[in-house]
């Protein structure tokens, strides 16, 4: 394995940590299960690609545009969640994923299956981040930024409102949490952060194709959140690292990646529904028992 190859793997790990964390805001915090998160990755990636390739705009402009536009589209696509709940919402988010991919495929502006190519490497303050360690640093910074947003949210009233909605939407309304506003808010933030990850994804690969953002990718992201520990900060990070590295470490898994994801999902649901490192999970209980003084003060870990 060359060092370039390893750096590439970890760049993807960093991007997927951001994605899993952003999905966790919607699904883990606010309790809105989404099987369409790859659509937001795609919208961010295509926004950046279009602005960079067709209009020659600099990286920071198309990156910010990806965040903002994906955030806005996420907010709009969140509207159905006001009318449908639970299993129907899952189906609706799936539908959104298929529609978005079709738009990339069949609207000429996006060049269909040929995709958008020759996306330039980003330049920030005269520095060009062309692959390798510099780009890994960039994606790692973004992952940390996403983590900071999640941490901040878990400390605010909005975070508490998300928890309330996840627990019992009607009861939340009856204490004054207007669930509509906060659900839309969760969709917006979650999508915006995924859009930023999409921008980094597009600039890293240098090209985007509709097939990069299909439905199975959404399942992969949800698997990361659930596998690691839904609703926690550590869970999605561990999930993203584990599920991205496994297929690389054991090459023979590569072709069966989604079989592995599916199998893991079933096993987790059966034996550890809160995830590998979720609250009440064996591993988490075990490790906190080893380090009694090391209890962090995150909201979800109140004993």
């Amino acid at each position: 394995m060359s060092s370039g190859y390893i750096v590439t793997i970890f760049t993807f790990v960093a991007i997927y940590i951001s994605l899993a964390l952003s999905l966790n805001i919607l699904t883990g915090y606010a309790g809105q299960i989404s099987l369409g998160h790859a659509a937001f990755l795609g919208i961010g990636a295509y926004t950046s690609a279009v602005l960079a390739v067709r209009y020659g705009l600099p990286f920071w402009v198309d990156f910010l545009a990806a965040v903002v536009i994906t955030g806005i589209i996420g907010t709009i696509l969140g509207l159905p969640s006001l009318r449908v709940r639970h299993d129907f919402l899952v189906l609706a988010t799936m539908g959104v994923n298929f529609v978005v991919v079709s738009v990339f495929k069949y609207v000429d502006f996006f060049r269909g299956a040929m995709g958008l190519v020759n996306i330039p490497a980003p330049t920030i303050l005269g520095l060009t981040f062309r692959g390798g360690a510099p780009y890994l640093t960039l994606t790692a910074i973004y992952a940390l930024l996403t983590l900071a947003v999640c941490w901040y949210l878990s400390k605010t009233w909005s975070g508490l409102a998300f928890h309330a909605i996840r627990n019992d939407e009607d009861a939340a309304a009856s204490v004054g949490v207007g669930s509509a506003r906060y659900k839309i808010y969760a969709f917006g933030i979650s999508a915006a952060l995924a859009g930023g990850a999409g921008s980094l994804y597009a600039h890293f690969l240098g090209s985007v194709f509709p097939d990069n953002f299909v439905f199975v990718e959404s399942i992969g992201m949800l698997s990361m959140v659930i596998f690691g520990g839904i609703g926690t900060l550590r869970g999605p990070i561990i999930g993203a690292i584990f599920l991205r590295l496994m297929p690389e470490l054991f090459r023979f898994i590569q072709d069966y990646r989604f079989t592995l994801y599916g199998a893991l999902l079933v096993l987790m649901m059966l034996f550890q529904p809160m995830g590998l490192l979720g609250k009440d999970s064996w591993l988490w209980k075990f490790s906190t028992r080893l380090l009694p003084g090391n209890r962090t003060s995150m909201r979800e870990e109140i004993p």
Partner: protein
Amino acid sequence: MLSVENLHVRYGQIEVLHGVPLHVQEGEIVAVLGANGAGKSTLIKTLIGWLEPSEGEISFQGERLTHLSAWERVRRGMAIVPEGGRLFRDLSVEDNLRLGAFLQDENTLKEQLEVVYTLFPILAERRKQVSKTLSGGEQQMLAIGRAMMSKPRLLLIDEVSMGLMPILVRRVFQVIRELREHHVSILLVEQNAFEALKIVNRAYVLENGHIILEGQPDELEKDPRVKAAYLGG
């Protein structure tokens, strides 16, 4: 302060409330008594805004709120203790209470937290505990405490005695009576007429979606229809 006129509520084709009239005066504790399936819970869910009436008007402190959503009614001074408590199960006792004051400012939050912890010292002791680990009685107290956090003008209470041991039922009703000191009017729906009639100023009897009786507790206790149906003859 609360007045309800001709309230009709239906689930699809089936009408559950057939034109219910009701009012609560400032400072009153009013009960709506009725057997299982009489429409009590439907009534209270419509009052808080979880269900929409097909006909009729609800006004509160002179304002029509028939078509407002639940959280907007809470902002206008209503609060509910739902059937079964409906706590935020994964959250701590204190977070449940804090959420109860979601629309209040920081000062009110602190004040009310003090009020609730004085009412229920056990909740103060269990502040950090996740609410689903509380006992049934404690959960019911937390539900009442959470509702009181918004400093409500009108408290709606749905079947608070359900599933509690008799001794706890008496205790909970005592607490409800004490709530009057906090300038809150109370409307409670109850199956346990015997205990409820001890603490209320006035009561309605709801039967098959119709209000069939209204009166003072002592009048109702004597009424043969109430005796037969709710007080064991």
